[in-house]
C-alpha cells in the first residue's frame, strides 16, 4: 500500500521534474529581467507595411517574418544564476545543439549554440549563454531565437536591440 502511494506521488511529480528544464519559467520569475516575443508578434509586424524606402527597415521586415520566438532572460542574483547555468546545461543536452563559438574575455564567457537550418547560411535555432563574473555587475544572460534565421541578419538585429553578447555575435560569420 505504501509503495503504491509512493509510485503515485512520483508519477504525479514527473511533469514538474520535466518542467524544471523548461526555460520559459524564467519569464515570470522575480529578479529576472525578461523579454519574450512570439511568432504571432512577428507575423503581425510583418503584415505592417512600413512603406519605407529605407533598405534597413525592409531587411528587418524580411528577417522577422521568419522568426518564431525570441526570449531573453537576464539575472544578477547568485541563486538564480546558478539555477540558470544548470538548466541551460540540461537544455543543451536535451536539444542537441551544436556549439557555434565560445568567447572568453575579461571575466565574461559567451557561448553560442545553433541548430542547423535549411542551408549553411541559415539556422533554426540560435542559443546564447553569457556569464559575466565581473565583480561590479555579475550577470547571466540566456538568449534563444528560433525560426528560419539568417545569421547575418540576426547579428545586426541584436546589435540594434543592444542585446548583451551582440558584439561577440558580430564576429560569428568571420570566425565560421
Amino acid at each position, binding site marked *: 500500500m505504501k509503495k503504491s502511494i509512493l509510485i503515485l506521488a512520483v508519477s504525479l511529480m514527473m511533469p514538474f521534474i520535466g518542467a524544471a528544464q523548461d526555460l520559459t519559467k524564467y519569464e515570470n520569475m522575480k529578479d529576472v529581467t525578461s523579454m519574450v516575443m*512570439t511568432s504571432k508578434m512577428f507575423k503581425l509586424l510583418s503584415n505592417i507595411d512600413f512603406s519605407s524606402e529605407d533598405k534597413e527597415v525592409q531587411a528587418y521586415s524580411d528577417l522577422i517574418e521568419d522568426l518564431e520566438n525570441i526570449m531573453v532572460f537576464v539575472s544578477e542574483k547568485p541563486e538564480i544564476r546558478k539555477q540558470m547555468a544548470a538548466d541551460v546545461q540540461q537544455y543543451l543536452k536535451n536539444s542537441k545543439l551544436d556549439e557555434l563559438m565560445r568567447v572568453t574575455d575579461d571575466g565574461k564567457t559567451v557561448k553560442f549554440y545553433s541548430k542547423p537550418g535549411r542551408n549553411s547560411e541559415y539556422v533554426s535555432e540560435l542559443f546564447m549563454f553569457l556569464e559575466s563574473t565581473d565583480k561590479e555587475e555579475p550577470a547571466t544572460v540566456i538568449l534563444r531565437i528560433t525560426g528560419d534565421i539568417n545569421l547575418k541578419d540576426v547579428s545586426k538585429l541584436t546589435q540594434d536591440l543592444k542585446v548583451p553578447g551582440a558584439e561577440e555575435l558580430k564576429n560569428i560569420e568571420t570566425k565560421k
Partner: protein
Amino acid sequence: MKIKVIIVVALTTLMVSCDDKTSLQEFYVEKQETKNYKALDLSTSLILNEKIELDSSQEATLKTIKKVNILAYPISEENKTKYETEKAELTKVFEDEEYSKLMSYRMGSQQVEIFFLGEEEAIDELIVVGYDDEKGFGIARVLGDDMNPDDVLKLIKSFDDGDINTGSFKEVSELFKS
C-alpha cells in the same frame, strides 16, 4: 483499495483541470463593480476631436475600432494585502489559449504583456496588461471588429496633434491617482 486511490486521484485531477475558466469579459464585468477597482470606457469618438476630417478609407478603418476600456487596480494602504490574489485571478484568465500572446517584458517589479484575439490581420481585441507590484495593475482593451494593424497605424500616423482629444488621456492617468 489501490483502485480506489487511483480513482480518487483521477477525479481530483479532473476537477482541478475542469475548473470553469473566466473570460476577460467576465472578469471585466465582475470587477468593475468591485471595490478597489476602477473602470473607464472610452469610445473612439471621445478620443478624437469631432472636427477631424477623414477620407473614406480612414473612416472605414476607424469604424473597425469600437472602444477602449480600461480596468485598474491601484494599490493603496487598505488593499495591499489583496493585490496578489487579484493579480493571480487576472493572470489565470490569460492561461486560456484563446488569447494569443504577442510579447511580454518584465523588469524588477514591473511587467507588461500584450495579447490579442482574432487573426493577425484582423484583430478583434488587443489587450495590454501592466503589473507594478508597488503601484497596482491595469488592463487596457482595444475592442474592435477585424482591426488591421497596418491600417490602424496608418490612421494614427495621419493624425495631427489637435486631432486627438488629450482630455481622455488625463482621465486614464487619474485612475492611478488615489
